[in-house]
């Protein structure tokens, strides 16, 4: 019984790491920049398919492929934000029309993936997928451990960038006081471009982790929309640390419920936990 309990906790923490990797980009775009990027999961799936191509045709490790893809996704992010800013945000139309814009991007990405890759499931196989390490009674599959460590590294890097660099601090400031940021000599549009680009850059890495976990098809991203937005809200809308903690809490709750009560209850219990937290602390765990 103790084995089962410890393994459930460990599996939940690893699962939470994976959720954090999927969410951290949205924490920046939605939490910090107030951009309802509902297409974020679709970009993650795009990252999965690009990873698949690099893995199949160039023999690259999926995670390495994800890291190499991140700069390209960063540039796509800058482009997407520029269109979004020019078409909606500058005119103050961003709330509803912006949402429609990202819905549109989501559908376009799905259709492009279907047209390019077809609709079959894709997955990758590496030497460490399927293997696990044992620490005492706890088994840690590499398929989950690698995403967990990658998520921690990515979130840690972003946290350091945001807190230690001028541009990073500007990103944190831009959502709060745009005018003050301009007075400090930083261009708010440029700052948001970079921030949105970083958010999409993380989608490339998250995509490589998603396809490492299991098979991916073009519309699989939709299934994760609710979960990752919930993590951003639970984490406190824009807090990187909060995102990690919220994702791990959600992962552990899901894992414990799946182990001891029944997996079909795990989303209900996890979202029930989210509602309870928001009732007690409306700004989320780490919100200000």
């Amino acid at each position, binding site marked *: *019984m103790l084995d*089962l309990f410890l*393994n*459930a906790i460990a*599996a*939940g923490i*690893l*699962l939470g790491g*994976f*959720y954090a990797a999927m969410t951290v980009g949205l924490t920046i775009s939605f939490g910090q920049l107030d951009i309802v990027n509902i297409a974020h999961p679709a970009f993650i799936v795009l990252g999965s398919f690009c990873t698949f191509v690099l893995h199949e045709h160039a023999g690259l490790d999926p995670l390495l492929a994800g890291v190499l893809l991140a700069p390209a996704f960063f540039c796509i992010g800058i482009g997407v934000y520029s269109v979004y800013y020019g078409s909606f945000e500058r005119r103050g139309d961003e709330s509803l029309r912006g949402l429609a814009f990202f819905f549109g991007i989501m559908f376009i990405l*799905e*259709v492009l993936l*279907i047209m390019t*890759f*077809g*609709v*079959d*499931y*894709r*997955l*990758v*196989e590496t030497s460490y*997928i*399927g*293997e*696990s390490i044992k620490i005492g009674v706890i*088994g840690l*599959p590499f*398929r*989950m451990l690698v995403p967990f460590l990658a998520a921690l590294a990515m979130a840690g890097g972003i946290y350091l960038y945001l807190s230690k660099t001028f541009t990073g601090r500007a990103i944190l400031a831009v959502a709060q006081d745009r005018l003050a940021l301009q007075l400090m000599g930083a261009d708010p549009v440029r700052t948001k471009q970079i921030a949105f680009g970083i958010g999409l850059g993380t989608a490339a890495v998250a995509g490589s982790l998603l396809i490492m*976990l*299991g*098979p*991916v*098809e073009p*519309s*699989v991203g939709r*299934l*994760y929309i609710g979960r990752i937005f919930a993590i951003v809200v639970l984490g406190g809308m824009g807090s990187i640390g909060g995102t990690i903690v919220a994702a791990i809490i959600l992962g552990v709750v*899901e*894992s*414990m419920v*799946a*182990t*001891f009560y*029944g*997996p*079909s209850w*795990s*989303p209900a219990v996890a979202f029930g936990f989210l509602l309870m937290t928001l009732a007690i602390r409306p700004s989320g765990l780490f919100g200000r």
Partner: protein
Amino acid sequence: MQCFSGTRRWALKLAAAAFAGTLAFAAPAQAEKPIKIGFSMALTGGLAAAGKAALIAMEIWKDDVNAAGGLLGRQVEFVYYDDQTNPSTVPGIYTKLLTLDNVDLVVSGYATNMIAPAMPIVMSRKMVFMSLFGLAVNEKFNYPNYFQIMPAGPNPLTDWSKGFFDIAAAQNPKPTTVALVGADAEFARNALIGARENAAKAGFKIVYDKTYPPPTADFSPIVRAIQAENPDVVFVASYPPDSAGMVRAINEVGLKTKLLGGGMVGLQFAALMGKLGPSLNGIVNYDFWVPEPTLKFDGVEAFLKKYQEKAPAAGVDPLGYYLPPYAYAYLQVLGDAVKAVGSTDQQKLADYIRSHTHKTVVGDVSFAPNGEWATPRALMVQFQGINDSGLEQFTKAGARVVLWPEQWKSGTLKYPYAQ
């Protein structure tokens, strides 16, 4: 006046000749009007991988039939719409097919969730409805003109998993405990209902019986919870992404059981089989066609050759063993009935299909009164000797040996699974 009259006579003759000419041309044009077959198909969304593969198979049948002169001397034409794997689109599609497109025949899309919503429309027009992989759809409708091509058998809920539990019960010493796990979705829930009944009939004690929600990213907590109950037999009813996640988690955790598998959708698809490779060894799972010597029906290999040439361009399953032969066969049944009856009279077609055995690429097919196969042929196959991720090995006999039904058996069970 006379001149005018003569001109008029000449004009009348000309008009009469033109009218007669029109009739003369109209008659063959009427005879050559194509036979239109209408259907919805999942070409986008979650079922699109199978839907597109089915469509390729159907196009191959159409080309074969048209090359041989068509049906009743008329060419066959398809009218189809993408149902987007969304059941709510299906009633509208079939209403349009039958009222605006005026199709002569209808067949179903793929699969259970897309077939059920079409039933009321099709039934109201008393059309023959050939159905592609619907699990127990007619159980509630009891529609006499419904014919389903998936070989689940006349009691699909229980026949589906009967083979798995028959194999388990035949082992010595007989296993005693069973775990049931499946997705929170229509097919898996139906499969679990049948599995519960079969487990009870075989005298097994159910020690774990749970469902999981889509998407489940990590199956290891579920596998550990199952292992904690130490079941002899584990029956899994899962969809493709879950099947892959489950197989990986089972291998990572090192599940110790004697018989594993049953209703795992996706382990029949080349993309998953190739990537999961050796981790599939020992799993006993349902299938409908595998390249074993006992299943070499007339025409199936020629069909698969044509399919495999077209599949890569469409990005669908490159082997096409699972669904495509049946998508070809359900049209074969309908086409042969049209030829035999000599018309598209729906009642005559239904009577013919019900009362005859049909030769198809998936073997001889005859239907029970509820429209399901009269004799179940949901095969139970075991993955054996899978060495790597190469697809080539799955095209040869021996990689997925047929264990059940006895008539089609091509090898022996490697038991227990944990070894």
